[in-house]
C-alpha cells in the first residue's frame, strides 16, 4: 500500500470534561474514499475540524502529504491541498455562484495580493471556474448571489467551491445534510464521479451514500474509534451494530 496522503495519529481533544475526540488514529490513501460514521456526538465533526486546523488538538499528530501539519494554520493546510466542505454551508452569500467558485480557483494560484488586475480577467482560471459550475449543475445559476440559491443548490455549490481549489484530499462534513432523497442521490452520484480524482474523508449519516462510496469505513462512538475496516466487515461487526447501526434500525 502506498504512503498515506493523510495520517492522523492518536489525536485527542477535550472540551472541559468532555473528551470530544480521544486517541483517534486513521489514514487516507490517495484516491480512496474513507467514511467516518457514528452516532451524533461521536466526535466526527470535531475530528474534521482538528484535521483542517480550525481547532488544535491536546495531543496527537496530523500529517499531510508526508509533512507534519499538526500546528499549521487552516489556510496553510488548505494551500497544501487539504480542502473541505462544511455541515452548514459556508459560502460568500453576496457573491454570485461563479464568483464563489472563482475565489476557490484562484486560491492556490499565486497570491491574493494583486491590486490592479481584475480578478476574473485570466481566461484559463475563468474557464476552470465555469467548468466547475457546469459539473455542479449550476451553469444556469452562475450569476445568482449564493445567498439566494436554494438549499440544494447551495450544497452543490459548496462541493463545487471545495473542488475548484483542486484539493488532493477533501474533508466532507455531511455533504447530504438537509437534502431530500432525490437530492441526496444526486449528491452521491456527484461524489461517485469524483472518486479516484481526489481522496475523500467522508462524514455522513446517510448509510446508502456511505456504503455506495466508501472503500473503508471507520466507526466512532463517544470520541473513540470502535471499528475500522472494509464496508462488508463493518456491516457484519457486532460492536458497530450495537453502538450505531442497531440504534438506527430501532429508530
Amino acid at each position, binding site marked *: 500500500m502506498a504512503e498515506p496522503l493523510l495520517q492522523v495519529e492518536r489525536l485527542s481533544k477535550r472540551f472541559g470534561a468532555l473528551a470530544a475526540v480521544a486517541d483517534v488514529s486513521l489514514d487516507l490513501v490517495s484516491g480512496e474514499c474513507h467514511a467516518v460514521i457514528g452516532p451524533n456526538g461521536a466526535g466526527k465533526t470535531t475530528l474534521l475540524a482538528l484535521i483542517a486546523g480550525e481547532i488544535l488538538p491536546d495531543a496527537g499528530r496530523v500529517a499531510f502529504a508526508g509533512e507534519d501539519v499538526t500546528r499549521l494554520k487552516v489556510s496553510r493546510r488548505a494551500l497544501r491541498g487539504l480542502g473541505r466542505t*462544511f455541515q452548514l454551508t459556508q459560502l460568500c452569500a453576496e*457573491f454570485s455562484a461563479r464568483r464563489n467558485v472563482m475565489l476557490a480557483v484562484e486560491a492556490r494560484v499565486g497570491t491574493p495580493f494583486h491590486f*490592479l488586475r481584475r480578478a476574473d480577467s485570466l481566461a484559463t482560471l475563468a474557464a476552470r471556474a465555469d467548468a466547475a459550475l457546469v459539473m455542479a449543475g449550476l451553469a444556469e445559476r452562475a450569476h445568482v448571489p449564493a445567498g439566494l440559491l436554494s438549499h440544494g443548490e447551495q450544497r452543490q455549490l459548496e462541493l463545487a467551491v471545495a473542488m475548484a481549489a483542486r484539493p488532493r484530499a477533501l474533508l466532507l462534513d455531511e455533504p447530504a445534510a438537509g437534502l431530500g432523497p432525490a437530492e441526496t442521490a444526486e449528491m452521491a452520484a456527484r461524489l461517485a464521479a469524483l472518486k479516484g480524482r481526489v481522496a475523500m474523508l467522508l462524514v455522513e449519516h446517510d448509510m446508502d451514500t456511505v456504503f455506495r462510496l466508501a472503500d473503508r469505513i471507520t466507526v466512532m462512538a463517544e470520541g473513540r474509534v470502535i471499528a475500522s475496516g472494509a464496508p462488508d466487515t463493518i456491516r457484519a461487526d457486532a460492536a458497530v451494530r450495537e453502538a450505531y447501526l442497531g440504534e438506527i434500525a430501532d429508530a
Partner: protein
Amino acid sequence: MREPAPPHVRRGWIAAQAGLAVLVAAPFVLTALDRAWLLPTLTRMLAYGLGAAALDVVLGYGGLVSFGHGAFLGTGAYVAGALIHHAGAATPLLRWPVEIDGSLDALIAFPAAALAAGALAFLIGAVSLRTRGVHFIMITLAFAQMVYFLVLAIPEYGGTDGLMLPARHRLFDLPLDGDQPLYWVALVLLVGFLTIAQRSMEARFGLALRGARQNERRMRALGYPVFRIRLVAFTISGAVAGLAGAVLANQAGFVSPDLLSWQRSGELIIMVILGGQGTLFGPVLGAFALLLLEEELSAVTEHWMLVLGPLLLACVLFFRRGLWGQVVRAPAHG
C-alpha cells in the same frame, strides 16, 4: 467572461463622472461668481472625503468597524504640520536614531505623512485584527486615544492648544498658497485613490477582502491568509487617511489634537454610513453632506448637535442604504 455589471453600478459610474465634472468646474465657477472663498471649505470636504473613502475600504469592504481612523488622519496632519514647523524653526524633527530635518517639500511631506500613518495602522492593526466585532471597535477606539495622548505629550507641538503652521508645503518649488493649488492637490489625491481603490476592490485582493467579510471560515478553508489580507487593507487605509490629514493640515495652517480625537473617528464612520458603505463614492458624498450639514446647522443654532443626533438616529433606524444607494438606486446593502 466577466460578471455583467448590474444597472446600479453603471449608474454609479455615470454619477461619479458627473460629480468629477462638477468638482473640476467648481474653482472656475466659484471664481466667476465671486465665491472663491468657498474653495477652502471644498478642499476640506475633499480631504475628509478621502479619509472616509479610505475608511470604507476596511469598514464597507472588509467589514471591520474601525473606531480609530481619527488617529491616522491626525497622525498624517501632525507629520505634515511638524515638518513645516521644524522647517520654519530650522530645528530637526528627529535627532535619534536618525536625524530628520523639517521640510517644506510636499513630495517629501505627503509621502511621509502616509508612511507614518500607515506604519501606525500596521502596528494597531497587528494587535486589534486578532479580535472580532465589538472587541475590534473598542480596541481601535482605545488605541486611537493612546495616540491622542502620545501627541499631547510632545511639548513642542503645543499640547491641547495645537500648533500654528508658519507656511504651506511647496510642490515643485511652487508654494501651495492661495486656495486653488491645494484644492487641485486634494482633488487629484481623491480621484487617484478612488480610481485605484475601485479597481483593487474588483481585483483579487478586493475579492479576498470582501469574501472574508462575508464568510471568513470559507476563505480560510480555501487557503486565504485572512489576517494578512486584512492587515494590508488596514495599513493602506490608515496611510491614505494620513494623506487626507496632510491636506487638512495645509488647508487649515493649523493642527490640533482635535484631529486625533474619538469624535473625528466617529464622524468618519458617520460619513461612510451616511454616504453608503462599500461603495467608495458614497463615503465621499457622505463627507460632503455631513460637513455641509454641520456648517449650515451651526449657522442656525449653537445647539446643532441636538439636530444632528436625532438625524443620525433616524438614518441608522430607517435609512439604511445611504445617499449613494439613493442616487444610483442600488439594492440595500447586506
